[in-house]
């Protein structure tokens, strides 16, 4: 092994296409992580397992961009939160009106629509819901009075399109439609053409009017959800979670796991191996026997037992991965240090009475640094896939949305059987891309460190 200066390594590295590709992917991943950490509030990630947080999202919706390739457009999920508010009072009667405008350009009916509101009122105001369709027809949906209260109160409610009164109101207006409404659900009627039961495209306005007598009533929160079958960049899963957020949070987590494990185990292995090789004799023998013992332990069964019996916290897991990661590197580092030890300058240094620790740190370790970097890069993918594998078996840390965890959920809910490709593909692709970046870097470094491979 000849010594290479860092300058040469850098030059050689920049010459290799593979190395540059690896660095580029890595840079993109790091940028993604940083953007994720800054842009996505930490709560979303803590709320990952809280179903309450995802309630207004659709179930197993495809990514929105799928529509781009489809001739029949899939309805997108719409969450409308900022209505046009008008207030009007005539004498004793006051009216608050919330209007939601939406453009519906899809070839299928939405899944449902939900109006979610909370109102502050006294007595019992009247709530009316109606929709103005693109063809100008106004359909009355609902007319209901809110529960009576003698003092000022806040009432929250969700009105679902499956509500039987909505259906009843619609069938009262059945003369508008030329076909039989009996078997159809409300959203299939509201968004339907009058002649045939096909979706009617154009601008819809949902009107929510609240009438109150003698007192001021207010709608504090008001949200209209048009339940679609497509949502977000990456779609959603069975538990309505936005997969884009899970995938984004997975990036810094995977990089953290991979880099920490790789860095720590390479450092440990390097120090261990170099020390054993440098000391030689009995020390070397015993240290290498111990190394053999760890080397011969079956890693995956052990990781599984450890995660079941001790803890499945992600940090503990990182520790376990380190314990098994350093062994191979120690072997190579030992044989390298055996070679370097015989060089003249090491002898000279020890003759001059330098301390062992100084010789190791100053004269031997720097020689191994290129190899160390190559091994760090090569160990990262292994750490990431092992963690993903454990998570996939359901032994991971459920409080963190790692890619393996997402795939575990996908497998539990039978995503493959149901054809939910957007739940299976992206996490695996992310694992592979991250692995690939480090393998590229590692291989490029490896070629520099072991010139034999270059030809």
């Amino acid at each position, binding site marked *: 092994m000849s010594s290479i200066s860092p300058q040469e390594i850098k030059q050689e590295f920049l010459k290799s296409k593979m190395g540059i590709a690896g660095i580029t992917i890595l840079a993109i991943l790091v940028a993604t992580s940083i953007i994720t950490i800054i842009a996505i509030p930490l709560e979303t990630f803590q709320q990952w397992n809280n179903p309450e947080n995802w309630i207004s999202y659709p179930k197993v919706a495809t990514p929105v961009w799928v529509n781009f390739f489809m001739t029949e457009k899939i309805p997108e999920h719409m969450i409308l939160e900022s209505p046009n508010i008008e207030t009007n009072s005539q004498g004793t009667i006051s009216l608050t009106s919330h209007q939601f405008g939406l453009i519906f350009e899809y070839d299928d009916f939405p899944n449902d629509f939900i109006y979610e509101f909370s109102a502050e009122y006294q007595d019992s105001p009247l709530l009316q819901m109606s929709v103005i369709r693109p063809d100008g027809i106004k359909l009355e949906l609902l007319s209901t009075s809110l529960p009576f209260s003698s003092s000022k109160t806040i009432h929250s409610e969700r009105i679902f399109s499956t509500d039987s009164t909505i259906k009843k109101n619609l069938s009262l207006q059945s003369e508008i439609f030329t076909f039989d409404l009996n078997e159809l659900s409300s959203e299939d009627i509201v968004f339907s053409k009058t002649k045939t039961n096909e979706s009617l495209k154009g601008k819809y306005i949902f009107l929510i009017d609240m009438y109150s007598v003698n007192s001021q009533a207010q709608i504090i929160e008001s949200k209209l959800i048009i339940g679609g079958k497509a949502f977000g960049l990456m779609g959603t899963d069975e538990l309505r979670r936005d997969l884009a957020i899970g995938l984004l949070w997975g990036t810094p987590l995977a990089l953290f796991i991979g880099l920490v494990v790789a860095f720590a185990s390479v450092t440990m292995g390097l120090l261990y191996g170099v020390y054993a090789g440098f000391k030689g004799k009995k020390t070397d023998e015993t240290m290498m026997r111990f190394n053999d*013992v760890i080397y*011969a332990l079956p890693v995956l069964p052990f990781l599984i037992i450890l995660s079941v019996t001790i803890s499945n916290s992600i940090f503990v897991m990182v520790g376990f991965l380190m314990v098994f990661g350093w062994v191979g590197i120690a072997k190579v580092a030992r044989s390298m240090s055996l070679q370097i030890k015989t060089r003249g300058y090491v002898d000279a240094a020890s003759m001059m009475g330098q301390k062992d620790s100084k010789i190791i740190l100053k004269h031997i370790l720097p020689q191994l640094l290129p190899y160390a970097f190559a091994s760090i890069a090569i160990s990262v993918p292994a750490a990431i896939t092992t963690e*993903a594998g454990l998570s996939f078996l359901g032994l991971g840390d459920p409080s963190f949305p790692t890619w393996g965890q997402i795939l575990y959920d996908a497998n539990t809910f039978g995503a493959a059987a149901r054809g939910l490709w957007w739940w299976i593909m992206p996490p695996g692709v992310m694992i592979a891309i991250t692995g690939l970046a480090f393998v590229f870097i590692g291989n490029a470094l490896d070629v520099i460190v072991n010139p034999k491979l270059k030809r």
Partner: protein
Amino acid sequence: MKRYVATRIVTMFGVLMITLLITVALVGSNMDTILTQGIVFQVRSEITEDPTIAESFSSVNEFEIFVQNQIDHRIKILGLDEPWYSPQRIGLTMYKILLLDFGRATFLTSDAGSSDVKDIIFEKLPRTILLFTTATIIISIIGIFLGALSASKIGSIIDRITSSFAIISSSFPVWWIGMLMIFLFAFTWQIFPARATPDIPSSDPGYIGALLYHMTLPLITIVMIGFGSWAYLVRNFMVGIMQEDFIMAKKTIGISQKKIVYSHALKNAAAPIITILALSLSGSLGGAIITEAVFDWPGMGRLYFEAITVMDLPVIIGSTYILTVFFLVSIFIADLLYGYFDPRVRTGQ
């Protein structure tokens, strides 16, 4: 050579003992709790089955004391009154395990209905060996030829494709590709079954055929992911050897490139190749846990996974032991083979 083999055997046995000790230590306390609960349950149910015992006591207190005495008595017989880490108990446990006496499974049973851990394991083991050994053999054959081919034509299209395929395939987790394969070939195009467990009983004459049919999809997946890195490894060994002086000498004599690659260089690469073959055979057994869980292949890996899910401790201990033994034996064989093919190793120490 003898000394070399002897030290290897001693190390191996030591590792086996340490693995066992760690496993027992990790699950020992849980095991005791489960066993004690089992005894309590057993005593209570015996008393409810036989009303005369309960009738023979005048007060509730007396009855409770009797029950407690019964429980204590049985705990003492089983030696559970001493903690699991007491030397006798650990010694006994490990001695039993060494003799393959793993006791009875708590929940799991073999397909034939036996709850003896040994029966369960020896029913599943051949299937794992069938799948993974077949896969490893196919992988190594493809890998060696592809590797030799690309080493003989460095920089050619074949070499580049092999190398890039190796690098790309090595960063995909096998189980994820497995999920995709199930998605594509079991549900989108219904060619292969999604679950790899044959649905006919093992006594049926068509069982082996069904097993092989169910094996196809996992086999294809494992081979697909595995052969690239094999080819790449073989290629790199060969490239190293092709630069040695004796190959140069053969080239100058005028022996054809083909003959050099396939007979001289490949022979010299045999030592590391065979070592890796042995190691990957054993490594595949460990990796089997996830792969079998994905494909639902009824082997050791899935058994291990099921045992972990329901915390069936005797099965966990037994499987870990068997997996470790296999792993160690193959490391041992790899070592011996390496020493055989490369005499420098033996004399070095």
